[in-house]
C-alpha cells in the first residue's frame, strides 16, 4: 500500500534519524579503529554525540553576516538533500526516502551544493585560512569530480538509466551482478574519487590542520559547529549509501546496508592511516592522472 | 573512732607543726642578713599554713589529706648536718635543716602508725606521714635544683 505524502514525510524523518545516528556511530567507531592503528585505546564510540551536544548547547557570540549563518544551513541542506533522493534500503518503504522523485544527477548536484554553501559562508568569515581551505577544497573537488563523473557516466551507460532504484534493481540476484564485478574499472575510478570526497588522507587538504588549521570550519563554533558535525554524519551516510547503491548492489535490508557502508567507509581509513597528505596541486594532478584514465576506460568499456 | 581520739590525734599533729614554726623562728633569731631571713620566713610561713590547715580539719572533723606518699629522693638519709646552723648559714644549711626536720617528723609518724591500735587513728597517722613525706620531697627537690646542681 502506497503511504500518503504525510506518511512518506514521516518515514523520511525516521530514515534521516536512523542515518544520522548511524553516521555518528560510524564516525565514532572509525575513530576507534584509527586509534588502534596509532597505538591508542581511543575515544568512546559515542564521543561524536558528546561533541555535538557540547557544541549545540553553546551560544554563538560572533556574527559575520547572514551568509555566515547560512553556510552551515546550506551544508546541512546539501547533506539532507543528498540523502533524501537515495534509497537507503532497496525495496523498503521506510528507507526508500524520495528516491523515486529524483535521479542520479540531482544527487550529484546536492553533493556539491553543500560545499558551495559552505564556501560562501566560510568565506564570509574573512579568515584567510577559510578562504584558502575553500579554494583548496573546491579545486580538489573539481579534480576528483572528473573520475567520479566518468564512472557515474559509465554506470549510467551500463544500466541505461539515471534512476538509482533502477540501477540497484539491476544489480540484484547475486553478487556477481554488482557493478563491482560487471564494471570494475568504473568502481576503481569511483572509489579513488571517493577517497578525495571523504577528506581522509592523503586528500585531507581542506581541513589540513598543520597547514591551514581546520580550514573553513575554523570560523565556526557553538551551535553552528554542531550543525556541521551533524551534517558530517548525514552526508557521510548519504555518500556511502550512494556508493553502495551504484557499485555494490545496494541493500535489501538495514543490516546489509550497515555492513556494506561500513566496509566502503573503511577503505578511507585504511588508506588514510598509511599516508600523509598530498599538497593540493599534487592531489589535483593525481586525480587528473590515473583515476581519470581509468574512468575514461570504464566509459569506453561501458559504451562499447 | 571516737571524737576524743580524733581531736587528740590532730592536736598532736598541730603541736608538731607549731614546733616547726618555732624551729624556724629560732633560726631566724640567729640570722645575720636579709637573704637568710627571707628564706626562713618563707619556710616558716609554710609551716604556719600547715597549722592553719590542720586546725581547719580539726574543726570540720575530717582529715582531708592524700594517702599517697611522695617519692623519696633519698637525700635526708645522707646529709650530714647534725650541727645547728650558725649566723653564717647559707641556703644549703637552711635547706638541709629543713629536710632533716621533715625527715624527723616522718619518722615520728611512722613509729606512731606502728604503735597505733585504733585503725582510724592509724589511718590518720599514715596520712600525716605521707603529708610530711611530701614536704620533705619539696625541700629535697629544692636542694637538688638549687644547691647540688652539679652533682
Amino acid at each position, binding site marked *: 500500500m502506497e503511504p500518503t505524502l504525510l506518511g512518506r514525510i514521516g518515514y523520511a524523518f525516521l530514515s534521516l534519524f536512523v542515518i544520522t545516528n548511524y553516521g555518528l556511530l560510524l564516525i565514532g567507531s572509525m575513530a576507534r579503529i584509527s586509534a588502534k*592503528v*596509532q*597505538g*591508542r585505546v581511543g575515544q568512546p564510540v559515542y564521543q561524536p554525540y558528546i561533541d555535538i551536544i557540547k557544541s549545540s548547547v553553546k551560544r554563538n557570540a560572533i556574527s559575520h553576516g547572514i551568509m555566515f549563518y547560512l553556510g552551515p544551513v546550506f551544508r546541512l541542506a546539501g547533506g539532507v538533500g543528498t540523502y533524501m533522493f537515495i534509497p537507503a534500503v532497496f525495496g523498503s518503504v521506510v528507507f526508500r526516502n524520495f528516491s523515486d522523485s529524483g535521479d542520479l544527477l540531482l544527487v550529484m548536484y546536492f553533493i556539491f551544493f553543500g560545499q558551495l554553501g559552505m564556501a560562501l559562508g566560510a568565506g564570509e568569515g574573512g579568515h*584567510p*585560512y577559510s*578562504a*584558502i581551505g575553500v579554494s*583548496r577544497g573546491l579545486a580538489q573537488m573539481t579534480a576528483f569530480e572528473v573520475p567520479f563523473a566518468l564512472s557515474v557516466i559509465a554506470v549510467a551507460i551500463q544500466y541505461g538509466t539515471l534512476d538509482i532504484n533502477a540501477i540497484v534493481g539491476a544489480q540484484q540476484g547475486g553478487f556477481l551482478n554488482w557493478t563491482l564485478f560487471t564494471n570494475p574499472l568504473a568502481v576503481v575510478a569511483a572509489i579513488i574519487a571517493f577517497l578525495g570526497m571523504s577528506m581522509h*588522507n*592523503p586528500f*585531507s*587538504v581542506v581541513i*589540513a*590542520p*598543520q*597547514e*591551514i*588549521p581546520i580550514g573553513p570550519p575554523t570560523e565556526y563554533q557553538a551551535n553552528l559547529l554542531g550543525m556541521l558535525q551533524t551534517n558530517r554524519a548525514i552526508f557521510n551516510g548519504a555518500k556511502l549509501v550512494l556508493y553502495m547503491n551504484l557499485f555494490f548492489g545496494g541493500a535489501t535490508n538495514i543490516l546489509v546496508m550497515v555492513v556494506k557502508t561500513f566496509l566502503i567507509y573503511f577503505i578511507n581509513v585504511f588508506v588514510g*592511516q*598509511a*599516508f*600523509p*597528505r*598530498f*599538497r*593540493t*596541486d*599534487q592531489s589535483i594532478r593525481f586525480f587528473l592522472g590515473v583515476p581519470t584514465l581509468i574512468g575514461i576506460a570504464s566509459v569506453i568499456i561501458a559504451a562499447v | 573512732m571516737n571524737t576524743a581520739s580524733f581531736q587528740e590525734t590532730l592536736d598532736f599533729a598541730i603541736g608538731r607543726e607549731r614546733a616547726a614554726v618555732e624551729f624556724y623562728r629560732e633560726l631566724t633569731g640567729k640570722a645575720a642578713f636579709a637573704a637568710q631571713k627571707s628564706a626562713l620566713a618563707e619556710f616558716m610561713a609554710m609551716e604556719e599554713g600547715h597549722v592553719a590547715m590542720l586546725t581547719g580539719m580539726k574543726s570540720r572533723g575530717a582529715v582531708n589529706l592524700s594517702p599517697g606518699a611522695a617519692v623519696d629522693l633519698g637525700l635526708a638519709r645522707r646529709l650530714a648536718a647534725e650541727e645547728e646552723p650558725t649566723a653564717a648559714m647559707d641556703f644549703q644549711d637552711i635547706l638541709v635543716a629543713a629536710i632533716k626536720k621533715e625527715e624527723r617528723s616522718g619518722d615520728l609518724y611512722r613509729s606512731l602508725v606502728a604503735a597505733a591500735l585504733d585503725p582510724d587513728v592509724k589511718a590518720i597517722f599514715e596520712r600525716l606521714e605521707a603529708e610530711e613525706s611530701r614536704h620533705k620531697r619539696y625541700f629535697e627537690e629544692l636542694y637538688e635544683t638549687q644547691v647540688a646542681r652539679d652533682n
Partner: protein
Amino acid sequence: MRRQNEHVIPPETRATPDLSSGKYLVMWQGPQHPGITGNMSLRLVADGDTVVDCETHVGYLHRGFEKLMERRLWMQNFPLVCRIAVPEPDFNEYCYAAALEELAGVTVPEKAVWLRTLSLEMIRLASFLMWIGGQAGAFGHGTIAQWSVTMRDYVLDLFEELSGGRIYHMYIIPGGVRGDVPDGFLDHVLETMQVIKKNLDDIELVMFHNAVFKMRAVGLGYIPPDWVDKYGITGPNARSAGVARDLRKDLGYLAYPQLDFKLITGGRSDAFERAELRLAEMYQSIDLIRQIVARMPKDGPFRERLPNPLHWKIPAGETYVAAECTRGEYGFYVVSDGGDKPRRVAVRGPSYTHAVSVMERLVRGVNIADVAGLMVSLHTYPPEIER
C-alpha cells in the same frame, strides 16, 4: 614532484610585494597554529599559494631567562635553565653546570660524567622522537606522530625513574648529578631501547618508503653547503649539507671520546635527507646508550661537594661551554664577577639561526602547505630563541 639537482636557491634579498595591489594574501602562521613548532609566528605573504615573503616573529614565550639568571643565586638558576629548550632540557642543564664547574675549577667525578652522557643521549633520542612525530605530522601523517610520541614517553618514563621528573629532569646539577641510577634502571633502559628500535624500524618502513611523504619532502628546503658557515648552521642541518661537524667529535666532551660512533653526513640537503639523517642518528643514539650502559662505572661518587649553595661565589671570569644537541650547537656563555649570582648569561641555541635567518630565506617560493613541513625539517624550538 621535484627532482634532484633541480634546486631553486631562494633569493637572498626580501621581496617587496605591493600589498595594496590586492594580488597578495598576508597570512599569519602562528603563534596558535598546529604546524608551528612552538610559540612562534610567521607572517607570510602569499601569491596564490606560493610564499613570496616571510617575516618571523618571536616574543610569545619571552620570559627573560638571561636577565632572570642575573637576579638568582648560581644554584637557583639550575632549575631555571632547563626551561629554555623544553623538549631537550638536559643540554641546558649540562652547559650551565659545565660552565659553572669550569669557572669554579670543579672536576666532576667519573660516574657523573657517564650519567650525564647517558642523560644527554637519552634526551637526544626523546627529542628526535618528538621531532619525527612533528615531521610526519606536518605532512599530515598523524599515525607516525602518535607512535613516536609514545616512544618519547617511554624515554620520559626512564627519566622519571632516574630523576623524578618527566619533562624537566633537573638532574645534571652543578658538581655532578643528583643521584645514582635506581635499581634495575639500566635494565629498563635496555628494554626500552629494544622497544624503540623496533618501532623505529616500523617508522623507517612506513615513513621513509612512502610515496606521498617522498613527494612532499624530497627537494623541499634545500640548504646549499656554502650557507653553513654563512648562516652558522649546525647539527643535522649542516651535516646533511655534507659538512662533517659534530661537537661530540670536535670537542670531545663528557664520555664521548670513549664511545664508538661515526659521524653521519649527507649531501642532498633537503627535508627528506635531513629526516633520514636524523633517523640514522636516532639509531646511533640507541647504540650509544647501549654502549654507555655497558661501560659506565658501577659505583663511585656522583657529585663533587660544592660550597653552600646559599652563599656560593664563583671566581670572576667568563667561559663558553657548548654541546651538540639534536639541532646543533647549544652553548652557554657565562660571566661571573666573583659574586653569588651570574653577571651575565647568554644562551646560544641553534634555533635562532635555523628558525629565523635560514627559515626566512628558505621559505621564499615555497607552497603554503609546505611551510610547516619545512620549518619542522629545520628542527627548531622557539623557546630557545627567546632567552
